[in-house]
């Protein structure tokens, strides 16, 4: 059984705020990051994800709890003694050194021989496709190029863990998409554990092996991208990642595989597992817009009936706002557009909503 790369054990971090009131940035967070994993800390700004990264790097120390790196506690170790390197949000390249000197810097600090250092720096620059830029100064590079140099510099000393603090947020969209693929490839090539901090759910879903969703200094959910997307444990996770319809309802009855919930007079919806709720309990249901299929109403079809209130064209899809019959619930439904590019339904049309089995989830709020 290989040792996990990082174990965060019940870590709390309290800062002294400007006004003298203590601010809790992390509240009893426990996490395990496996070796050779692309792990993402995801959450809105101020959720504590960057603080957690800084605790791992050693820029801050936990108020309570402990961080264990490959089985060894790193309590009290300063950053220069941790086999962990950081790629900073704004790259933090040394402006008075060339690209090659920047990449060679950690090696020089570790006392490597100059010829060995030059070779390693060249290899690293090659790895990030910047081999021809060694003699440039950082201010002669574009944002994307600086990003690559920062990566090469952080990877050069072969850290056991690479920490990435929103490294793509300063790049434009095209470059960002390109770098996502490259980062993922780089992680596979080097076999180094990546801990990636982002507030961008798409980044998290596309790159990660596992994701930890954080909010208000607390860990909300930890799991694979699919698990996080398909089985969000609470309203925050469901809302933060992807689009979700939330419906307030009460449980009308328990069935063998789930529950039946009332969402309007005489209108019910079958749901997935009920957690620990029983008949008559008020619950919040979550349904993803793409899990509902619209069918033209021929009057006789059973299922949920509704009327299209609004169409928003988004290219491949159209988002329909559908008002349910016998209910004041409005659902967003995503439907593929026809091959010819037309939207399949018009405003005012009556439709039937087919909700897939288990698509509606009862949230453990």
């Amino acid at each position, binding site marked *: 059984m290989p040792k996990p790369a990082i174990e965060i054990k019940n870590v709390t971090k309290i800062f002294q705020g400007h006004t003298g009131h203590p601010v809790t940035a992390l509240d009893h967070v426990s996490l395990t990051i496996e070796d050779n994993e692309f792990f993402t800390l995801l959450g809105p700004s101020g959720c504590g994800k960057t603080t957690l990264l800084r605790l791992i790097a050693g820029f801050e120390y936990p108020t309570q709890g402990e961080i264990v790196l490959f089985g060894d506690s790193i309590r009290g170790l300063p950053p220069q003694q941790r086999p962990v*390197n950081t790629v900073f949000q704004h790259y*933090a390249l*040394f402006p008075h050194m060339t690209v090659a000197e920047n990449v060679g810097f950690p090696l020089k600090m570790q006392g490597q021989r100059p010829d060995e250092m030059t070779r390693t720096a060249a290899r690293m620059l090659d790895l990030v496709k910047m081999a021809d830029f060694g003699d440039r100064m950082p201010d002669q590079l574009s944002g994307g190029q600086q990003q690559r140099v920062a990566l090469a510099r952080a990877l050069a000393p072969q850290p056991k863990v690479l920490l990435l603090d929103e490294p793509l947020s300063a790049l434009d969209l095209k470059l960002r998409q390109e770098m996502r693929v490259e980062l993922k490839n780089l992680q596979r090539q080097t076999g180094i554990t990546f801990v990636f901090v982002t507030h961008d759910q798409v980044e998290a879903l596309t790159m990660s092996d596992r994701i930890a969703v954080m909010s208000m200094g607390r860990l909300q959910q930890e799991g694979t991208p699919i698990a996080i997307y398909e089985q969000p444990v609470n309203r925050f996770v469901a809302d933060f990642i992807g689009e979700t319809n939330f419906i307030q309802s009460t449980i009308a009855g328990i069935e063998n595989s789930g529950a039946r919930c009332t969402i309007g007079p005489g209108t019910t919806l079958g749901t997935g597992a009920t957690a620990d709720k029983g008949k008559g309990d008020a619950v919040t249901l979550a349904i993803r817009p793409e899990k509902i299929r619209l069918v033209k109403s021929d009057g006789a079809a059973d299922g949920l009936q509704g009327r299209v209130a609004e169409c928003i064209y988004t290219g491949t899809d159209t988002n329909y706002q559908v008002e349910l019959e016998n209910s004041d619930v409005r659902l967003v439904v995503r439907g593929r557009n026809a091959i010819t590019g037309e939207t399949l339904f018009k405003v005012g049309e009556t439709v039937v909503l087919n909700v897939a089995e288990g698509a509606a989830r009862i949230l453990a709020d």
Partner: protein
Amino acid sequence: MRLLQSTQMRRVLGLGPALGIIGFFMVVPIAIIIVFSFMKSNPYGGVNPEFSLEAYKQFLFERNLMDELVFNAAYLRIFGRSFLLAIGTTALCLLIGFPTAYYMSRQPARRKNLMVFLVTIPFWTNLLIRAYCWILLLRDTGIINNYLIKWGIIDEPLTMLYTNFAIFLGLVYTHIPFMVLPIYARVEKLDFNLLEAAHDLYASRQQLMRHVILPLAAPGIIAGSLLVFVPCLGDFIIPNLLGGGKHLMIGSLIQLQFGGSRNWPFGSAAALILMSFVLIAMMIYVWGPGRKMKPEGDA
């Protein structure tokens, strides 16, 4: 074309006042001094309008009884002493000023501004008055000696006033803000992320200082050193008041030539020689940072 001319015209007009002030208050006096330095002195003050290299000869030679030129190192020694004192003052100002400026720059914004304000307080009082205060502090019956005797640390008063030590102390005291402020302006802009990045990339505190902070603070250090070194070299108030005029400095020497000695050409020549040294120092400053930005082979 017309537009270009008009912008050029406006540029000239805009620069006009500044050029006028510099031209009148700098170029004209320097031209006068250059002219004076090549004339003969008038024992009643002023100059006799005759061409002569006497002033420059006097700098290195003196005439003996037979009216022959003999090498005389007295003035060179004065220059040498002034240089040593100016270099020493600059070094001590840097030694005290850099940590001070660095410490100031790492404070929260409000504390920072307060500290910059405190550094500028000495400028509010005239230099002469501050120099006399040092006399009150340093003299044999001064505050420092009185307390040292009262507390039984010494029996006899220490002679501090009118020594090289007093000059040195006075020069460091008056010039240290000129070292602190440019360095502060530089390190205050230092990206804190760079310091974290250096630590993260295995730099110890000493390595961080040597490889990151000092190179990035270099322009401020050079500017501060010049701002201390150049005025120190020509200073005469502090050497006169705290040194008692016993040890001549370049500044005092020049002042003396225009005053008591009534040798304006020699005073002008000494001032020009001093200025040429200062110009050399300035050129090092102008070319220095350019060289610094290029990659170093091995640092």
